[in-house]
Each structure stands twice: as structure tokens, then as C-alpha cells.
């Protein structure tokens, strides 16, 4: 009886330990994802900042127009395309494939940027 109780206790401890470890792992992954899940690109004074951004796969990049005039964010390879962004409006895109994504503003084609997804 005492032996079976101690075996049950050991099993429970192992189970709890495993669960605890699993939870710990999950939260580690989540915090790692949180660190890299969103990146910001600021549009200001007719330029994207940073001009070149390197991010891991799965990252969501958000462009925010801080300029007084409207801009767009258009992928050169037609992967993504925003609507016209007025002041303080945002556009987000999640990069699910590793590649280099050059983009520009279709109203001001001299404005260019690049997202490198690794």
C-alpha cells in the first residue's frame, strides 16, 4: 500500500514536473516570438525608416505614416500593397517566407525600402 502510494506520488510529481517544464518552454517560445513578432517602419519626410529591415520569418512589419502627406507601401514584386495612408495611418504585413522584399511608395516612386526576411 505504502509502495503504491509512493509510486503514485512519484508519477504525480513527474507529471507535474513535465507539465511545468512544458509550460516553461511554451512561455519561452512565446516571449521569443513577442520579441520578433512586430517591427515598425516609420514613413517621414519622404523616406522609409529604417530603409532596410532584417527580420525573422513570421514577423509582422507595420508601416506608420508620420508625414503630412499621403504615402503608400507597395512591394516591387506585388507581394503586398497598402491603401493610401494618410497621416498616422498604418499598414501591416506578415512575412511568412524568407526572401528579400523591396518596396516603394507608388505616389513617390523615389521612396524605396527593403525588408529582408531570414
Amino acid at each position: 500500500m505504502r509502495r503504491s502510494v509512493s509510486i503514485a506520488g512519484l508519477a504525480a510529481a513527474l507529471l507535474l514536473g513535465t507539465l511545468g517544464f512544458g509550460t516553461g518552454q511554451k512561455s519561452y517560445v512565446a516571449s521569443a516570438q513577442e520579441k520578433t513578432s512586430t517591427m515598425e517602419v516609420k514613413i517621414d519626410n519622404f523616406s522609409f525608416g529604417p530603409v532596410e529591415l532584417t527580420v525573422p520569418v513570421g514577423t509582422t512589419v507595420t508601416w506608420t505614416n508620420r508625414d503630412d502627406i499621403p504615402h503608400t507601401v507597395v512591394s516591387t514584386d506585388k507581394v503586398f500593397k497598402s491603401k493610401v495612408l494618410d497621416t498616422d495611418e498604418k499598414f501591416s504585413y506578415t512575412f511568412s517566407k524568407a526572401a528579400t522584399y523591396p518596396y516603394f511608395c507608388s505616389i513617390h516612386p523615389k521612396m524605396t525600402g527593403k525588408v529582408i526576411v531570414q
Partner: protein
Amino acid sequence: MHPFDIKTVVFAKHAQHVVLIHFPIALFIIGVLFDFLAQWKTQRLLAAAAYYNLLVAAIATIPVVLTGILAWQWELEGQKLKGILLMHLVMGCVSSVLIWVVWLIHRRTRRKQEEVLPGYRLPIEAVAVVIVTLTGHLGGFLSGVNGPG
């Protein structure tokens, strides 16, 4: 970027609208200036110069409006405009109509072989110059002439 693709030729990194727009603006303002001078100096030669400047200005509005609307439809996929872009579109259309109206007033007088142009054209021309200038200012603001590079 293909050099013979129509969208590339008209828009990407080679926007024709911002190039062509200078022609009707310059021709119209100079045409109005000649007309005011013709009125003041009572010279036929200045009146003729005004007429032909206004004629070419009116014709030049066609490709400008066309490239502007195509840029809206192709580059911005015809999305509902707001703010400065909408203001620029509306004022651009009003400006074009006013340029044509001014030229038609001149044309009607010439066709009727009347000696004197109607006096009411002068305030219309003055208002048209103001609207054309404001539209050009908005266009310059949008195109980023004040921006870096």
C-alpha cells in the same frame, strides 16, 4: 521595369502627369496675362497671342487629366480618395473646365467676328488663375517637390 510597358512608361519612376502639368499651367497663366495686356493696351496682336496660348493650354489639359486619372486607377487601384488627393482631383477637374470655358469665350467672340471680348471673362480668368495655382500648389505638395533629393 520594362521600357515598353505602358504602365511603366506612364507611371513607375517616370510619372508623366507631373511633367505634363507644367504645360497647361504655364500656357494658361501667360494666356491670361496676354489677354489682360491686350485689354489694357488694346492691341490685336496681344489678343491673338492670348487666344493661341489659351487654345494650347486647353488642349494640354487633356493628357494631364488623363494621366492623373490613370495614375489614380492604376497606381492607387481607384480607391476612394480623401484629403489632399481628393482636393487635388476636384480642383484639377475644376481648373480644366475653367481653362476650356475661358478659351470657349474667346473662340465664340472670334467666330462671331466681334471686335470686343466680353468684360465678364476677366474675373473668370482671374478666378481660374487662382484655382489653377492652388491646384498646382497641392500637386507640388503631393509630388514632394519640397522633400529631400
